């Protein structure tokens, strides 16, 4: 095998791992009721190890099907022997077709629901979902959540013993009646989507989107929040392509080419938001989706109903207070022509220890000063923003702004 082929094989394995790890674990738990999560996880890992050796000589025609057949094989043998380790001897020659992708989403949703236990903390739920449902490695999760890989592996290790195939998510259709599990699952899907959006990892966003759709399809309780979240995700994704220029640099909303926003997605999202909005009192998801809707259908940046958006943020802040909501509210107020009120709000935020050095706060202040032709203060705040924790993309954006400020007379 040439070096080139070896690299291709590694790439293929990584791709399959990312796409199928969670589905395979869930597939085993659904099929073999006596398996523990940790067993299922080990069996899937072993199958990938086996694949990386076996596929060097011959690549199976259907690699996915090969993997599924291997884990099923091993699981039956594991069950028969009930011992810690089963040597891999019987690799499949001509495996049956793998589960369709629709089954795959359903399996993932069951696994997600099984992770959503009210007695786990929100962080533990998120970490578990990222590991098992979204197939991320510990190191990737640590980077995403800004923590040490060590912390993540501790959480995962404890979870491995708590999650089991006995969970109602794997046992019965009554799980689709569980409003509690739906709520928790939506929270995680929201966070995963937002994180994916931030780090521009389209895959993560699309996975969160398709699982949200699966919640809407499967849940037997009414799911206005799932519909609103689905709408929110679609509104965001409709402008995925225009967020960056050809060089991959972040573009501000007003510089994005609106005619390239995906109108079909916006139409579907609008429909879902309408369906969701029939409830008597709006949820935070509905308000956030409403903001996204107003942006999506505004003919241009200047024609955006900024005052209405600021009001929605005010409403959102009352329901779920957050400095980031306040920040967005202030920016909307500025664009609505109430710069004084905006600055007042941002000054208040700057008193909070958490926000004081946040790059988004300083970027907002800098933008407002730049709009008021106060180049000096704008420059000062863009420089402060660099001291925060901008992502590499954001840092490049800020540096570009600083350069522009320095070129001003």
């Amino acid at each position, binding site marked *: 095998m040439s070096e080139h082929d070896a690299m291709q094989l590694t790439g293929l394995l990584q791709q399959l791992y990312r796409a199928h790890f969670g589905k395979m674990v869930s597939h085993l738990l659904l099929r073999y009721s006596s398996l523990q999560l940790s067993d299922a996880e080990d069996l899937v890992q072993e199958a990938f190890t086996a694949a990386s050796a076996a596929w060097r000589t011959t690549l199976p025609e259907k690699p996915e099907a090969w993997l599924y057949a291997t884990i099923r094989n091993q699981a039956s043998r594991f069950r028969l022997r009930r011992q810690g380790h089963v040597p891999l001897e019987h690799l499949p020659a001509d495996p049956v077709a793998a589960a369709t992708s629709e089954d795959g989403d359903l399996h993932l949703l069951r696994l997600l629901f099984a992770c959503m236990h009210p007695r786990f903390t929100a962080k533990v739920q998120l970490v578990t979902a990222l590991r098992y449902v979204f197939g991320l490695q510990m190191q990737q999760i640590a980077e995403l959540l800004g923590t040490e890989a060590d912390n993540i592996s501790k959480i995962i290790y404890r979870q491995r013993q708590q999650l089991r195939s*006995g969970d109602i998510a794997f046992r019965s259709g009554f799980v689709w009646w569980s409003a509690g599990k739906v709520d928790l699952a939506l929270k995680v899907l929201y966070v995963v989507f937002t994180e994916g959006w931030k780090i521009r990892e389209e895959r993560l966003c699309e996975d969160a989107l398709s699982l949200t759709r699966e919640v809407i399809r499967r849940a037997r309780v009414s799911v206005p929040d799932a519909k609103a979240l689905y709408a929110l995700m679609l509104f965001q994704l409709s402008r995925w392509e225009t967020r960056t220029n050809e060089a991959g640099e972040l573009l501000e909303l007003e510089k994005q080419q609106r005619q390239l926003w995906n109108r079909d997605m916006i139409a579907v999202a609008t429909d879902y938001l309408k369906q969701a909005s029939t409830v008597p009192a709006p949820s935070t998801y509905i308000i956030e989706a409403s903001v996204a809707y107003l942006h999506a259908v505004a003919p241009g940046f200047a024609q955006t109903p900024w005052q209405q958006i600021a009001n929605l943020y005010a409403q959102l802040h009352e329901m779920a207070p957050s400095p980031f909501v306040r920040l967005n509210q202030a920016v909307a107020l500025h664009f609505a022509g109430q710069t004084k009120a905006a600055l007042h709000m941002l000054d208040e935020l700057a008193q909070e220890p958490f926000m004081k050095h946040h790059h988004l706060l300083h970027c907002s202040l800098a933008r407002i000063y730049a709009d008021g032709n106060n180049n000096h203060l704008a420059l000062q705040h863009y420089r402060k923003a660099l001291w925060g924790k901008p992502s590499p993309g954001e840092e490049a954006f800020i540096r570009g702004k600083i350069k522009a400020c320095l070129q001003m007379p």
Partner: protein
Amino acid sequence: MKKFLLLIREDLERVKNMTEAELQADIAKMTRWAEQLAGSGNLLGGEPLEADVRYVKKAHIATDGPFAESRESVTGYMLIQAGSLEEAAALAASCPSVIDEEIAIEVRPLMVHE
């Protein structure tokens, strides 16, 4: 451990006339109980049933049941495991919808030949 089928029976007329809020409250109650059974390791499976129905006899397919006077019908089933019929019955009796007299549960041991 033995296996038992729980047949959930209730008045279809009552189900049909429930408001959306009542229905959701009903669902929440039943789900909590099913989750408890899953948590204690008793639940093996089960599904709620749709209300649509056909009664089939030779040369006869109808939407009315053989017992026209009875409006009670099966609206869901669960497969559970328990030590004995008594234990299974005690589990069924712990269902909040049974306690609130909204449903009745028929507990039937499976004939399992192993």
